[in-house]
């Protein structure tokens, strides 16, 4: 994995004394720091200059999160005939953007602020978490930090993972999932996590990792990191997402699943999720421009009911069937679910569809708690 080294740090005055700020600045002693009153100034500049996305990511903004840190996953919000089955997930937006340059990354077409951002007012984050979890003792919470950023890509600078893991260790109805494509696990290994944090890796065959996930850790590095986390007592998870349909996909994914489930004992795996490539049409155009040699836009992608381009449904179903049978072969009993898929696809692949999102979410939390 390529470490992140910003060329400049913009610091919002309101978080200049925050512990997260201090950790980042201590970790990057040679990076120039510019104090700003508000990130709105940078947003205005970004709109005018429209720097390339890669260039904009060389600037790191330490900002105050003025909105909510803690939210329901946006996947839960689609309803009706267009709705997909979601897993009742919650997200913590402690950072936004990612420097690892995966060609399929939806953030390219989603974020209007092009720089790397870390929200440094962590006091507010923990206050929100405490309130939400304490207010609903009857509810199980499965919470992730990997929606707008990789959970661990900046952990060497921020060490955000440490207080989060320690916080969730104390909860009886909530678990944390740290989802990553890195091998940055140094901050995690000595923590008293009580098994309430799941460390999860997104995985793709090495061919895809090398051609589409440009600055990420190699698959071997990710599996080695997973092995170390298992040794440190953590439950781990794997997300085969996005699964790419290309000429050699069956052989490559079969090998990947075999390697993963041979390396990591099944009883340490909390869950495996499956998600075939999906993207808004705008992202397809961004991929073409930024990554002209990417094979992703060349798949048999059609507009789906949620407005995204997805592989034609029989292809998705075939992919999930195949992946599920491989997982069953090498890791029997490991819980498997499909991420953001249609109910009829669920029924075809799993033989049933959960009656509610909460039921699916709870079943996953209970694997861990």
């Amino acid at each position, binding site marked *: 994995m390529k470490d992140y080294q910003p060329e400049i740090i913009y610091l919002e005055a309101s978080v200049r004394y925050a512990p997260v700020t201090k950790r980042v600045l201590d970790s990057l002693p040679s990076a120039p720091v510019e104090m700003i009153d508000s990130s709105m100034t940078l947003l205005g500049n970004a709109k005018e*200059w429209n720097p390339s996305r890669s260039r904009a990511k060389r600037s790191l903004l330490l900002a105050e999160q003025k909105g909510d840190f803690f939210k329901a996953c946006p996947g839960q919000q689609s309803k009706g005939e267009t709705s997909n089955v979601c897993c009742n997930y919650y997200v913590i937006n402690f950072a936004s953007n990612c420097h690892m340059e995966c060609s399929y990354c939806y953030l390219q077409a989603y974020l209007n602020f092009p720089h790397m951002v870390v929200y440094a007012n962590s006091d507010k984050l923990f206050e929100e978490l405490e309130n939400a979890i304490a207010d609903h003792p009857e509810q199980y919470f499965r919470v992730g930090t990997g929606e707008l950023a990789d959970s661990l890509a900046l952990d060497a600078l921020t060490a955000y993972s440490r207080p989060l893991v320690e916080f969730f260790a104390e909860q009886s109805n909530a678990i944390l999932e740290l989802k990553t494509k890195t091998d940055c696990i140094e901050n995690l290994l000595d923590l008293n996590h009580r098994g309430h944090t799941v460390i999860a890796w997104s995985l793709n065959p090495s061919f895809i990792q090398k051609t589409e996930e440009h600055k990420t850790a190699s698959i071997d590095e990710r599996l080695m990191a997973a092995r170390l986390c298992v040794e440190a007592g953590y439950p781990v998870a794997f997300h085969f997402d996005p699964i790419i349909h290309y000429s050699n996909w069956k052989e490559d994914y079969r090998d990947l699943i075999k390697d993963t489930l041979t390396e990591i004992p099944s009883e340490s795996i909390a869950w495996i999720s499956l998600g075939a490539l999906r993207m808004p049409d705008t992202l397809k155009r961004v991929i073409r421009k930024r990554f002209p040699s990417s094979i992703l836009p*060349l798949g*048999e992608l*059609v*507009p789906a*009911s949620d407005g995204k381009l997805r592989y*034609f*449904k029989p292809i998705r179903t075939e992919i999930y069937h195949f992946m599920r049978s491989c997982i069953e072969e090498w890791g029997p009993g490991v819980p498997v679910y499909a991420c953001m898929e249609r*109910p*009829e696809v669920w029924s075809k692949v799993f033989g049933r569809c959960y009656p509610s999102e909460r039921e699916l979410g709870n079943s996953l939390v209970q694997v861990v708690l």
Partner: protein
Amino acid sequence: MKVLMRKHPALSFSLVNTHEIDSEDRTYAITPEWHPLGSLLTSIQAVGLLVPLWLEQSQRSQLRIISGFRRFKAVQELGIEEVPCVVVPQRPPIETFVKVLWENIGSRELSELEKAAAVHKLKVRFGLSESELITQFLPVLGVAANRHHLEQYLDIAQLPESVQQAMATGELHTDVALALSEWRTGEQDFFIQLVSTYQMGRNKQRELFEFLGELRALNGCEVFSVWDRSGAKAIHEDQRLSPQDQLAGIKSALRSLRYPRLSEHEKRFQKLRKSLKLPSGVKLDVPRYFEGSQIEIKMGADSPAKLREMVRLSDRSLDRKELDQIFELL
């Protein structure tokens, strides 16, 4: 009426022999050299050159055109040997170019190609920074001041001549022209010819380009091979079809090759639906791209008796096993 006139100390009209003018030096030109002269020729032929050329003294032996490239070309074509000119002393080229640009902006609407040429010259020939171009020049050209537009205009300036010409005639849309630059010259000309033959609007151009471009990338071959293999060539050459039907057939052939599983599914659905032998006036449809789990039936009748009969006949059709097979497609 008394006309008050004062002679400008630096400017005076001269009649200059065209041989003294350097026709190769296009330092200050922003209009492409190939741009057709149109009615300029007939105008000069009728009344002569009314607006003089502006020239500057050059360190080379000949005079350099500052303004009037098209007029000079017309004069040459008409074989006129002496033209009225204003000859000015040489100034730093960037200064003169900016003046020319202002003069053009003030007198007419610049085309996209001319704006692109101006931006490209300012950057490449005169060495202006991106920041200067974005803040000082894009707004003057009526272009939104950001890097995206700067890059787009720089790309337009470097498009091959044939692509620029198709853009200039309005046949080829800018975003398709820019995407087309990734193809080889022969492929570009082929696509431009198609656009011209079928008089495609922007959306149709984009759609055809996308099909051909993606199939070309998928198969690692030239566009001609895709054209042939898909059957589009045969449809294109079928004189029995109207241009409209040819284009629809070409699109369908390319779509089948680009989306083989979907096309196969659609054909199967159509065959099964036909086998149901639904009464006329009854329509059975699946969700778009088969994304969904429900099948819809629509029927319409103008009397209770007809509707009852329609339902009765439909009922018989829907008892067939083909209905189950249609559901299996979802």
